[in-house]
């Protein structure tokens, strides 16, 4: 047993040092990471609802409302100009994040795609303004799939974005009831 003592001890010491260093790093980066993981970046907010700042984070109060929607939502921001919802729906290559800016008349101002793993040249085209601008001005009364030019060979991606926008509009109508 004796011959195992020193090796195990030194391994333990090294591990302890490494863990300590990691704990320190974690301590410093934790706040920023949590903030980033939940909500949209300032640039995104500015794009989907121009001039909307400053915002109040109302994610928790909406979560409490348990609204029945197809897409998931991870963040909700409210301002004088309207709302920005961060939606997550299932695309071709995985989850797609869609930021939806809705004004106080219930119309979509603009949308923007966040992280996604759609195929370059196909589904990824949904990120382009040519596609996203089609959603501006739409509201809950519109039959959205009819108003959108589907991306060729990227039906799943297009559907995912539509679902995200529809869900965001649904949240809006619940919140403003």
């Amino acid at each position, binding site marked *: 047993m004796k011959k195992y003592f020193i090796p195990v001890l*030194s*391994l333990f010491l*090294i591990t302890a040092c490494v863990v300590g260093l990691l704990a320190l790093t974690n301590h410093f980066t934790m706040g920023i990471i949590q903030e980033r993981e939940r909500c949209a970046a300032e640039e995104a907010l500015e794009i989907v609802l121009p001039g909307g700042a400053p915002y109040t984070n109302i994610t928790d109060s909406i979560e409490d409302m348990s609204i029945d929607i197809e897409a998931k939502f991870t963040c909700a921001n409210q301002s004088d100009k309207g709302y920005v919802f961060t939606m997550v729906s299932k695309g071709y290559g995985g989850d797609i994040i869609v930021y939806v800016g809705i004004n106080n008349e219930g119309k979509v101002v603009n949308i923007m795609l966040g992280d996604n793993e759609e195929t370059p040249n196909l589904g990824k085209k949904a990120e382009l303004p040519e596609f996203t601008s089609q959603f501006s001005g739409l509201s809950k009364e519109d039959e959205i799939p009819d108003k959108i030019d589907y991306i060729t060979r990227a039906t799943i991606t297009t559907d995912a974005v539509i679902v995200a926008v529809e869900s965001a509009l649904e949240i809006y109508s619940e919140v403003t009831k």
Partner: protein
Amino acid sequence: MKNRSLQEFSKGILKENPTFILVLGMCPTLAVSTTAENSFMMGLAATIVLVLSNVIISLLRKLIPEKVRIPAYITVIAGFVTIVQLLMKAYLPELNKALGIYIPLIVVNCIILARAEAFAAKNNPWYSLLDGLGMGLGFTLAITLIGIIREFLGSGAVFGLQIIKNIPMPSVFVMPAGAFLVLGMLMALISALTHKKTEIKDCSECPMQCLPKKEKGDN
């Protein structure tokens, strides 16, 4: 002194290029090289971890007992990888999402462990630093080259700059099959240039594979 320094540094770039000659670290090379930018950043991240772990392991080389050296190396490497990962999550979140799980997988990147076992454990910190830098640079160059080729052939862009517009490019290149294809072609090319047949080493280059021969009854 200066001659040896140059030698330790430069061997990783051509003669002992980890990707094309030593055939190590294939996982990230194939997975992440869909765009030139992703490839470059992955190469950079791996190089940072490689240099740091090489230096630390070299500094500690007389203090780490033989029996537990592999777990010790892994612990050190995992530590640096996690630090890089946390910093990325906080300050470069888009890159973190792009590289995904391949960031933590840098821990098991054969290149880093192999250099720790083969070099850092037996040389002083200065040469270990150079070795890490050279190998890292070699890896970065290789993976970025593959990334440039795949991004260009697959989507007509390089580093995000759209060079070929309006002509549809074969998107197979940014898909997994394309990775195999490009790497295979490059290997054939290298083989032709160096007149040597590229061997698949049965991953015995990676020291992990020697585990059962050494005694390791402790963790």
